[in-house]
């Protein structure tokens, strides 16, 4: 279970300063911010821009270009279900539909109790054990809705 820190300007400034000297520092900084805060907070955008001598619009453009960067923190767990062709060939669409129904959420949504955020993903490289999913950093192969629900119940 991921625990994220609430927004803190000093903390963000430290994170940015620690990586601002890297070559092409933008993505490493955004990843670090998201790791700590669960997302790239709007308040951090002008700070990143200033540190890297970019415009706010440029940083906004970068944050929104990449599917992975969030604007708000996710639930306690992030469930990424693969929707790509290899998984489709073994019924991933049906499995995903069952998971959505069981959790009561659509793609990119978080369950009412804040436990799980469901994200689509295009390939986890688990194509020989399809359908596949990643619950936080735990991979699942030969995925069924029941298997996943059991795993969620086992996960604190």
């Amino acid at each position: 279970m991921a625990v994220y820190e609430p927004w803190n300007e000093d903390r963000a400034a430290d994170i940015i300063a620690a990586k601002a000297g890297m070559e092409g520092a933008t993505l490493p900084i955004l990843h670090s911010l998201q790791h700590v805060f669960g997302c790239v907070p709007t308040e951090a955008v002008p700070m990143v821009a200033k540190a890297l001598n970019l415009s706010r619009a440029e940083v906004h453009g970068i944050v929104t270009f990449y599917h992975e960067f969030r604007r708000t923190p996710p639930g306690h767990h992030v469930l990424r279900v693969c929707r790509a062709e290899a998984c489709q060939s073994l019924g991933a669409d049906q499995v995903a539909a069952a998971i959505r129904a069981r959790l009561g959420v659509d793609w990119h949504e978080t369950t009412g109790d804040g436990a799980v955020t469901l994200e689509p993903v295009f390939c986890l490289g688990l194509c020989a054990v399809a359908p596949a999913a990643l619950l936080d950093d735990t991979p699942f192969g030969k995925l069924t809705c029941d298997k996943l629900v059991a795993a969620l119940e086992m996960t604190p």
Partner: protein
Amino acid sequence: MTRVFVSRDAASLALGADAVAAALAPHATVVRTGSRGMFWLEPMVEVETPAGRIAYGPVSPRDVPAILAGTAPSLGPVDDIGFMKRQTRVTFARCGVVDPLSLADYEAHGGLAGLRTAREIGAAETIDTILRSGLRGRGGAGFPTSIKWQTVADTEGERKYIVCNADEGDSGTFADRMLMEGDPFSLIEGMAIAGFCVGATKGYVYTRSEYPHAIKTFDAALAVARHAGLLGETFDIEQRVGAGAYVCGEETALLESLEGRRGQVRAKPPLPAHKGLFGRPTVVNNVITLATVPAILTGGADAYQALGMGRSRGTMPVQLAGNVKHGGLFEAGFGLTLGELVNDIGGGTLSGRPVRAVQVGGPLGAYFPPAMFDTPFDYEAFAKRDGLIGHGGIVVFDDTVDLAKQARFAMEFCAAESCGKCTPCRIGSTRGMETVDKIIAGVSVDANTELLRDLCHTLKFGSLCALGGFIPYPVLSALDHFPEDFGKPAALAAE
């Protein structure tokens, strides 16, 4: 205590390898390796015996006592399993055999000999060896590796870079992931050789964020290599993590992303070899390409060149995926036919139903029907039939597949992943999706099919990179080979 080997490959973990390793741990010395690539047998356990490693699989924790007692039914020596026996493992020779983070294990199995050879014979002779081996880029484009290296070596620059493309986004491919998790030092060695040949001092590996296990293993391997003095002042490597953009697998978009910008494709020229990362001369190669270089220098260019067919020399790690009975990684010389790979080696579908289509080369690859299974696995043979081998992934579908739906998915995927730089891809993909929807709904089918073909033509010839340029392959191949799925008689749908 008996030594046993259990894979720590993400796909093995996805089937419960950790629980099996935990059950074995109190009774045996457990070595965690990469995977042999026989995923229908995972979690697989290999027990060290005087007669070699004996394999068991698929194993559940309940089977552990019987395995240790020697009473469980075994698969025999792992090297004698048909799927292994038929392979020619060059790039993946160590994968599944060694502890991926043991440099001693790596050296004991032939590692670092390639780098030593390169330093002995010098940069020019090393590039010449790669030239004679016939090695072409395994990322998909198939560009001769030696020419790229020679260009960077010949280009003046106060700083040069080696960039490894580990943004393996194609569905049905997992060779890069397996290698980074199972034999990461071969990639490090390959990059060090590349750096030596072209005069680069810094290497970047751009790994996709969807591969948390590969990222962790490779970072650990970098730390080991640095500690051993393999990396350092003369040449160092840093891993960078992507953020879920498929297009960053395109080399210029990858460079933009590494520089900290949106992953938008650059117009070529200038080539990355002349003006690449931060405007410096840069070698951009795929994981498999770089990891194969040490083996070529060790085994010799002639031995590597002797494998394969036509202009496709050496071996290709083919990845069998999707609805296939024996899914996994099969490394062999180019030239096996698609039918041999899918039916003989892959064993047909997992569902037991007839094979109806295979998609080769990821989301930008063509759908081929069994009637085209005589196509040899070779860059030119696939291109001649309006397909591509790409990064070597084959996704198998049974007769429940709806190719009109797959064609729509291709356009939907392109629309979601387009970087937006060029108009055909940015707008054409969305219009393409709408047009396929109309055809599926039966609205002016003939006119809309003609429109879709015309649009595909525009995408193919008007796009800046392979995303827009190749998305017509899955769409047109679905239309050409499976016209019945588009709600009209075959004779009318054929061009």
